[in-house]
């Protein structure tokens, strides 16, 4: 039966309202839901059965006993972090050898060679804007590549299981800085991890950065690489890590209107030099305040005008007093 609001047959309108449009809505939402939410496949869930836990069990093939072992922290994967990470849509064996499906894992898996960014993204038009080739070039010039060679790869800093492309997002600067710096501190703030990479005593960061006033504020508000990497305009984040002696040490490189932070930490939002309220590098002020970089144009002008007016006032007053004194003394 066709329901008619006005007692008349509505035909096409009726089918449009109650039939086609809801179907289109349902189709749209189901597609968008598929796009945003990654889901684990059965194979990966099996992997996570052990790798999401601090301990795992396996059956000894000789004795038949069930053995419980500690899962090394580096091999533990947080399923929530992974599913929300940039590569969270992949199943484990997209990047790892299918031999990992065998339990216990065979010895061959120990010698697996990991993919690097360029193995997938090299020459890829879809990701051309990221300039992965330039990132690679810049990385090869870095102190990490030159000192550690093969022992240091993309994954040394970017944990593929939690890596999230979020530097473009405005807001939550402190979180973004903390996430970035955490990658550096994995080695530079951990004696054991540092010792794995290089036979050298780990420098105490608090001592080597003792020249910074308000040290903790600098650590919370600025990324390590803002001072320790050379900027390259064609990539979003600098990858040419510099040796300590070549890093930024002059305060005015950030604390001035030509602040280098606008070419690094605030690169994505640095479309304006002076905002509507007249602040230089106004975008910084959404989340921080940098003395010398965030001066205000209008206040500058007002202060100079007031100063000049005061000096002129004083000069006129002094001149008039001088003339009076001269006249009184009969010059």
């Amino acid at each position: 039966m066709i329901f008619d609001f006005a007692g008349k047959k509505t035909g096409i309108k009726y089918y449009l309202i109650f039939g086609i449009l809801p179907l289109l809505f349902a189709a749209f939402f189901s597609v968008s839901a598929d796009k945003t939410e990654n889901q684990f496949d059965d194979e990966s869930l099996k992997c996570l059965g052990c790798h999401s836990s601090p301990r795992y069990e396996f059956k000894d093939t000789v004795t038949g006993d069930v053995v419980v072992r500690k899962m090394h922290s580096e091999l533990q994967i947080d399923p929530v972090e992974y599913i929300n990470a940039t590569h969270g849509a992949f199943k484990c064996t997209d990047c790892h050898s299918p031999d990992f499906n065998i339990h216990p894992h065979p010895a061959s898996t120990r010698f697996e060679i990991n993919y690097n960014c360029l193995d997938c993204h090299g020459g890829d038009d879809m990701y051309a804007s990221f300039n992965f080739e330039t990132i690679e070039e810049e990385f090869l010039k870095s102190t990490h590549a030159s000192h550690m060679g093969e022992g240091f790869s993309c994954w040394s800093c970017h944990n593929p299981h939690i890596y999230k492309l979020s530097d473009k997002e405005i807001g939550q600067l402190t979180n973004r800085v903390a996430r970035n710096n955490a990658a550096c501190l994995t080695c530079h703030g951990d004696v054991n991890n540092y010792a794995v990479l290089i036979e050298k005593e780990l420098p105490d960061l608090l001592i080597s950065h003792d020249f910074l006033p308000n040290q903790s504020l600098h650590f919370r508000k600025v990324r390590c690489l803002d001072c320790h990497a050379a900027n390259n305009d064609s990539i979003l984040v600098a990858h040419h890590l510099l040796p300590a002696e070549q890093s930024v040490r002059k305060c005015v490189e950030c604390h001035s209107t030509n602040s280098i932070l606008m070419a690094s930490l605030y690169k994505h939002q640095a479309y304006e030099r002076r905002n509507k309220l007249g602040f230089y590098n106004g975008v910084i002020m959404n989340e921080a305040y940098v003395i010398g970089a965030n001066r205000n144009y209008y206040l500058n002008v007002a202060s100079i005008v007031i100063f000049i007016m005061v000096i002129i006032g004083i000069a006129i007053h002094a001149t008039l007093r001088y003339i009076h004194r001269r006249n009184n003394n009969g010059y």
Partner: protein
Amino acid sequence: MATKKIYLYPLWLRIWHHMNAILMLSLILTGISMQYSNPDYPLIRFDIAVSIHNISGVLLTLSYIYFFVIILFTSIGRYYVMGQGFFKSFLIQARYYILGIFRGEPHPFPVNEQRKFNPIQQISYNIVQHAITPITLITGWAMLYPETIVLNVFGYSGIMLTSLLHVIAGFSISVFLLIHLYFITVGHTVASNLKSMITGYHEIHVDDEEDIKTNSDKKTKH
């Protein structure tokens, strides 16, 4: 002209005043250097400016608290009290600075044991000492420990607002300092005020007091 000398500025007061002057100057210079920092034309190297600014700020706070306690608990506080009829006295003093001073009129409120400041000095010292300086000190300490600052005030960064307040208050002090320095020369002679702040003795000109009496008598007759 009959003069008598009174010991108006004891040694401790002069030391406090001159130390304040040095600290304020160092704060203003280092503050300007940081606010207008430029890699090509550094007034004072940024890190050095920061250290000097912080140390001077801490010392100025101690000096401020010291003098604030003295004002509260000793008779010196009376010089800062703006009594009844202040507004009228203020206008008389303002008229003197705008006109009378060029006509050779005597100071309407000359310095004596009971009155160290004229009404304009009173109000400007009160504003600078009891409003602007505390603002710079409080905002300065807040920026020394920025974690104590409220992150967001009506959508604006708390640090930015604190810093703006600090810079505006600091600028006001520098304007005061400029006028204050000029007013050194507005004594009985160009150098007499400066001399007083060095020796501690202020020369009182008896004629001044008599002139004022005569002037006020004339005004009442008219």
